């Protein structure tokens, strides 16, 4: 049990600490920028100005430009023409280091290279702004700015369609490189730097993005938060239960050794040596279990998660990392067992040997309230026996209930996660979005081109923008969805009922409203990322969306607010295969659900692991306690058997108690599981909004699993009952 507890704790902990340490190392090794300043034209003058700011420690320009790779599926490749590459360095895996004087080489993304089967030495060409460049691949690797990299069309990356490439500024086909991003490193916090910039350099640049807001960094840190949360809840539940079980086991093992202790004492052993003997006995067991857990946990469990995570995130190293916390927990476990065994032995060894040498006299049962009411008379022997047995062994009863409670809570949680993920998919991709294809409009496309495409595919134009919303002192980034009358995207409330947002209304998503602590009638301000024009809006409605948090409004309303309507996508019922020059990329509903499924793969795994461990937990708890109680009542069982009770009747006797406790534990476990699930969903990141719920089927499944385990454990005992030696059990002293 000590092993299992420490195993899960250290395993899941190692996974999440591993993520953090690996990503931090990666960020540090590659000198990830602290912030990015975006501007149409970053001349030397501006660079000087930034360098002159007191807190700037380092800065470096690059041109970041979207291009299309010359492959049959027109993948989006983001090109970086770098001036120096000392900040946010390219992390090389194969080939040679990025060479700033090399005008012919390109350093590309490992995931993209793998997807396209590209190797060092191959040639690759890109087209941007009508210019096509062809370069030789000199190196393949990762970039700290692209741990998470997905297109605007879907949150889930498809490395066949998206990639990035680094080149020297010398590789740019023109002499004057129109740098548009300034990577900066600075001292102090980002907020201060932001204000410093807007103070000193207002007007000279478009926007500033700090590290925490960078899409790759923030996505990955959200993912880490999720894992941290999970490693926070589940292992702790396990550790607690493991400790409880350890407690009961140690106490009982020692009380079973009672007569032995008596004999030792009678033979003249000192209390100290007896205590030492029994305490060290438990100590070694727990110590070995804990150490094994410490070693095996981090080695095995993370390996279950990392493969599916590495499908989404690009990190050079996926190593579980060991943290001192695990050792503390293990040490705590060992100390607990020491204390418990010490207390248990002491209570026995303090008695005088004459008493100790005999078994402890049974606890006296007493009649209570229940016996006085009329029903008692009508209860069967089975019910009476079990009631009194439970009453006499309150501690054991409590432990069993807690064990089952833990099991059913974990099961509810696991199935709740399963349902939540499925609900989310159904909600987002069937209830809200009904289109078949989404065509992402090229930023350079002109209105008439866009309208032509829209007409051609019989689609509706929409605008999706990243925005920043501020209410009171809270600032959150979110998204803005601008819709004209369309049946293809229908916002809903949290019950999946479609809601109508009128032309002059603004609706905020439930999660965003919760995050900002605002409601209908409140006024908040926001700006579109990339522009510093803040506008005030009053909230008219609240809608709910599982994966996108922010505002929904009409084009009219956007106009009213004085913002430009620039459609970013066209959605259509038709399945679109053809290419349009105004369209950057097309993704079908099928692609999106498929990539969603891929993203949730690691989730499924977690769910299976949860179910497995929850079941294991229930079995261990029930068997352990069952075994201990069985040895205690062996004599009674033997008597009943001698008297003529059939094995089946005796099994039912034990089963009844198990089932009662299971039922109580199950009922208590439901709210606990629900609560854990709620915490989990709430902590799943700012952009997710999932309501904790569990479907009837899975609820029934939870019940079935819990009770099946209880019955299964009981079956293990029926063999014991059958083999019970009646004659032996009846001998001995009373």
């Amino acid at each position, binding site marked *: 049990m000590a092993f299992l507890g420490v195993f899960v704790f250290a395993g899941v902990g190692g996974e999440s600490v591993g993520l953090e340490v690996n990503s931090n190392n990666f960020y540090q090794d590659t000198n990830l920028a602290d912030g990015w300043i975006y501007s149409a034209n970053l001349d030397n003058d501006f660079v000087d100005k930034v360098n002159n700011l007191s807190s700037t420690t380092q800065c470096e320009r690059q041109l970041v430009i979207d291009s299309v790779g010359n492959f049959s599926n027109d993948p989006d490749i983001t090109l970086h023409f770098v001036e120096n590459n000392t900040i946010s360095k390219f992390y090389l895996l194969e080939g040679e280091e990025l060479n700033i004087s090399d005008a012919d080489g390109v350093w590309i993304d490992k995931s993209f290279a793998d997807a396209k089967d590209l190797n060092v030495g191959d040639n690759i060409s890109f087209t941007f702004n009508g210019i096509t460049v062809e370069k030789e691949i000199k190196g393949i690797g990762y970039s700290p700015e692209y741990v998470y990299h997905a297109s605007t069309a879907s949150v889930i990356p498809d490395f066949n369609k998206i990639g990035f490439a680094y080149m020297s500024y010398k590789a740019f086909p023109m002499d004057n490189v129109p740098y548009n991003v300034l990577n900066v490193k600075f001292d102090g916090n980002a907020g201060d730097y932001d204000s410093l910039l807007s103070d000193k350099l207002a007007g000279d640049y478009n926007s500033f993005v700090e590290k925490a807001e960078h899409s790759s960094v923030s996505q990955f840190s959200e993912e880490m938060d999720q894992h941290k949360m999970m490693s926070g809840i589940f292992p702790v539940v396990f550790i607690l239960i493991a400790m409880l079980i350890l407690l009961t086991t140690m106490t009982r093992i020692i009380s079973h050794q009672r007569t032995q202790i008596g004999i030792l004492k009678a033979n003249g052993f000192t209390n100290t040596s007896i205590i030492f003997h029994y305490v060290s006995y438990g100590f070694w067991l727990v110590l070995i279990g804990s150490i094994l857990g410490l070693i095996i946990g981090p080695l095995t469990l993370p390996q279950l998660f990392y493969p599916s995570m590495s499908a989404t995130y690009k990190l050079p190293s996926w190593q579980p990392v060991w943290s001192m916390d695990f050792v503390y927990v293990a040490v705590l476990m060992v100390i607990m067992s020491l204390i418990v065994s010490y207390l248990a032995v002491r209570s026995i060894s303090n008695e005088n040997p004459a008493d100790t040498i005999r078994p402890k006299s*049974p606890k006296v049962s007493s009649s209570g309230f229940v016996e006085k009411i009329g029903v008692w008379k009508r209860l069967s022997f089975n019910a*009476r026996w079990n009631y009194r047995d439970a009453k006499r062994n309150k501690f054991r009863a409590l432990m069993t209930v807690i064990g089952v409670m833990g099991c059913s809570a974990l099961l509810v949680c696991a199935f709740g996660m399963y349902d939540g993920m499925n609900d989310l998919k159904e909600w987002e991709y069937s209830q809200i979005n009904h289109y078949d294809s989404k065509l992402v409009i090229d930023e350079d496309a002109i209105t008439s081109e866009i309208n032509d495409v829209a007409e051609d595919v019989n689609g509706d134009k929409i605008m999706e923008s990243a925005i920043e919303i501020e209410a009171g002192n809270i600032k959150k980034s979110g998204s803005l969805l601008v819709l004209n009358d369309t049946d293809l995207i229908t916002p809903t409330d949290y019950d999946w009922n479609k809601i109508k947002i009128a032309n002059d209304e603004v609706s905020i998503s439930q999660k965003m409203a919760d995050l900002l602590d605002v409601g209908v009638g409140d006024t908040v301000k926001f700006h579109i990322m990339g522009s510093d024009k803040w506008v005030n809006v009053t909230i008219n409605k609240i809608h709910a969306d599982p994966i996108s948090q922010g505002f929904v409004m009409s084009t009219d309303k956007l106009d009213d607010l004085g913002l430009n309507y620039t459609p970013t996508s066209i959605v259509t019922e038709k399945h679109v295969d053809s290419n349009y020059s105004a369209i950057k990329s097309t993704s079908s509903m099928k692609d999106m659900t498929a990539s969603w499924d891929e993203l949730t793969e690691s989730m499924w795994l977690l769910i299976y692991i949860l179910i497995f461990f929850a079941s294991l937990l229930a079995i261990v708890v029930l068997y352990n306690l069952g075994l201990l109680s069985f040895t205690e009542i062996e004599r009674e069982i033997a008597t009943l058997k001698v008297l003529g009770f059939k094995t089946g009747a005796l099994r039912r006797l034990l089963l009844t108690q198990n089932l009662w406790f299971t039922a109580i534990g199950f009922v208590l476990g439901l709210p606990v599981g629900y609560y854990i699930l709620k915490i989990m969903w709430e902590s799943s990141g700012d952009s997710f909004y999932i309501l904790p719920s569990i479907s009837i089927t899975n609820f029934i499944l939870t019940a079935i699993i819990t009770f099946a385990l209880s019955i299964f454990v009981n079956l293990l005992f029926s063999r014991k009952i059958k083999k019970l030696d009646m004659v032996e059990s009846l001998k001995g002293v009373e």
Partner: protein
Amino acid sequence: MSTLIEFKDVVKEYKSGDNVLRAMDNVSFTIDEGEFVVILGPSGAGKSTLLNLLGGLDSATNGQIIVDGEHVENFDDNELTEYRANNVGFIFQFYNLIPNLTAVENVELMKDIVDVDIDGCAVLKSVGLENHANQFPAQLSGGEQQRVSIARAVAKQPTMLLCDEPTGALDSKTGVLILNLLQEMSNDKNTTVIIVTHNAILAEAADKVIRIKNGQIEDISINVNPKKVEDLDW
């Protein structure tokens, strides 16, 4: 009186590894209905083995055990359980009451295994414990506990009462009371009572005495005029 129990050349062997221990060697005897039988023997003579075979706790290696016309030696586990439930009322040296149940509940427990309606209070009254019906075993003295155990055994109206050193854990005064009770059961209610003991004094009170030694019958004697237990010279 008709024959209730018949042992015919019963052999019981225990195997442990290569060693075969013959605990019961060609034992034959009969017990009649309503008899008060004492089985005597020093420890290790095979008393317990005999009791186990008679009580259906163990199966014989060879020979026949016929109880009430049925061949017990052919019974499987389930039939043995059934046999114990219906035919044998056990009284143990250490009472073996169920600590979780009150005296009356311990008696009425039998309702679960036999098809007899039992009035626990009435049965307890017959052993003189009507005032302790709602007490738990731990609250009763040894003699009282043994009386509950007798009540439990007779409540189901078994073919025989099988008593394993019933006074072994009691002081002599209480022991006499218990044995007296058992003798009365036999005399007044025509219950077959079989007592296994090493206490030779009891022999004088028995209708039939079966002495065993080294797994064999040493002697079977019949007292034409058995003494009353209370008249024995303790």
